[in-house]
């Protein structure tokens, strides 16, 4: 079976700065991979290239067996992205925003899709409210609904629970687990929340200065580096071997 995502020898340079250096990884169908690393390590650049927002300097990206540079529109139809750093138009109601994106993704039966997501993500009570007036927890769930509006086979998540209270954060994590089980979709999760990564991800890629410095299952990495948890592994790898 082909992979959801395959990244081969991927690099990105800006003039003299190398942001990503020859990275390789794969995500199988129905798998969640964590992308970890300190700020500026190349996570966003990598995600940007997968989304087609950035042109790689070298290397190739295949999504569902198709090369992104040659099938950008077809691929974007089947993937989506959520990040707390991008927003939906604040003046539109939740339903209007979801309708607009359903149109942009050529979704059939738009009302059914919105109803389904509204029920799953508990949006019903504020579907007709203006998006800008919602709490950050509500906005996060609306962004998640937008990211799932096209029923993607690959979802890219950049710190999906950043700035959420523990209850909403747990709701989102549980939702993602349930949704993966139901729809068999794949996730690439970039996060600084180590408990979240340990809970959700079957495998982890540790990035530093544009390269993948280690990879493996969370428990295997903890064992391999002789630490108590993933946070300590993260600190060891990002600060240096002898620190901590």
């Amino acid at each position, binding site marked *: 079976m082909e992979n959801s995502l395959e990244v081969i020898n991927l690099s990105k340079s800006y003039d003299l700065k190398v942001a990503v250096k020859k990275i390789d990884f794969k995500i199988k169908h129905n798998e969640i991979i964590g992308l970890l690393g300190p700020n500026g390590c190349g996570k966003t650049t990598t995600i940007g290239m997968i989304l087609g927002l950035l042109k790689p300097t070298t290397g190739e990206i295949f999504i569902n067996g198709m090369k992104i540079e040659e099938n950008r529109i077809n691929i974007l139809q089947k993937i989506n*992205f959520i990040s707390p750093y991008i927003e939906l138009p604040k003046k539109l109601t939740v339903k209007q925003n979801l309708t607009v994106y359903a149109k942009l993704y050529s979704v059939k039966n738009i009302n059914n899709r919105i109803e389904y997501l509204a029920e799953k993500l508990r949006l019903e009570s504020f579907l007709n409210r203006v998006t800008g007036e919602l709490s950050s927890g509500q906005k996060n769930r609306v962004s998640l609904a937008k990211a799932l509006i096209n029923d993607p086979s690959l979802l890219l998540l950049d710190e999906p629970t950043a700035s959420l209270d523990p209850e909403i954060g747990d709701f989102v994590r549980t939702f993602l687990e349930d949704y993966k089980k139901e729809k068999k979709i794949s996730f690439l999760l970039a996060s600084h929340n180590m408990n979240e990564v340990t809970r959700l991800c079957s495998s982890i890629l540790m990035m530093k200065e544009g390269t993948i410095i280690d990879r493996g299952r969370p428990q295997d990495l903890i064992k391999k580096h002789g630490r108590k948890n993933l946070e300590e592994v993260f600190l060891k790898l990002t600060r240096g071997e002898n620190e901590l």
Partner: protein
Amino acid sequence: MKMSFSRIYGLFLRHFFLITRSFPRILDLIYWPSIQITLWGFISNFFATHSTYYNNAVGVILTCAILYDFLFRTSIGFNMLFLEEIWSRNFTNLFIAPMKISEIIVSLIFTALIRALIGLVPAVLLTSPLFGISLFDLGIHLFFLFLSLYIFGITLGILVSAGLLRFGPSFENIAWSTMFLLAPFGCIYYPIEILPDFFQKIAYLLPLVYIFEEARSILIEHNVNYQNILNAFYLNGIYLFAAISLFYYSFNKARKKGTLINIGE
């Protein structure tokens, strides 16, 4: 691969919802053209009674003011639609949606027309009762003049949006100043002979001069010069092609430079 009507309509809908949800936005669209036209209406009346050039053609200045305002609103409207995505931090969402560049351009071209008309129609309706002037005195040629201005307006909008894509929000100030830079060369309120020789050469490279010369020719001399209309369309075709090409080039450059990510966050 052909364009998708659903996606074009989707992007239109995003701006339609935005406009129709906000009364101040609608008011803002109507307010400035109406003020502009009222002001030029009184100036026009003054010149019509105190100028030998305009004394037989009441409303020439006002008609040209309305035409220029339509151009201005179309161009600014296109830029505003693009800037709106940056201000609302929705830019990344838009560019990771499966929209072709051609679909984005077509949708914004159509939406910019709607925006311009929302402002223009009430202003035009004001001119008849207030100043006794009808834009329709230009006859069927009015359509060609408006079409020509519309094409040039969106051409400028596409050029500025290409700059925003390439250089990011720092290009925003240019978005506001483009029309003011071109206005002196457009010969909107005066014949081209007023300009110094060197400026005239520049003016003849713009479709504006042919459009406004034609409007004056029809209103003052009651003479239709089809060559002016054709010249305007030829130049519009060239500039529109160049602007769309530049937009594609800027998009590819932005993908290389990372501007799409920087603008979006």
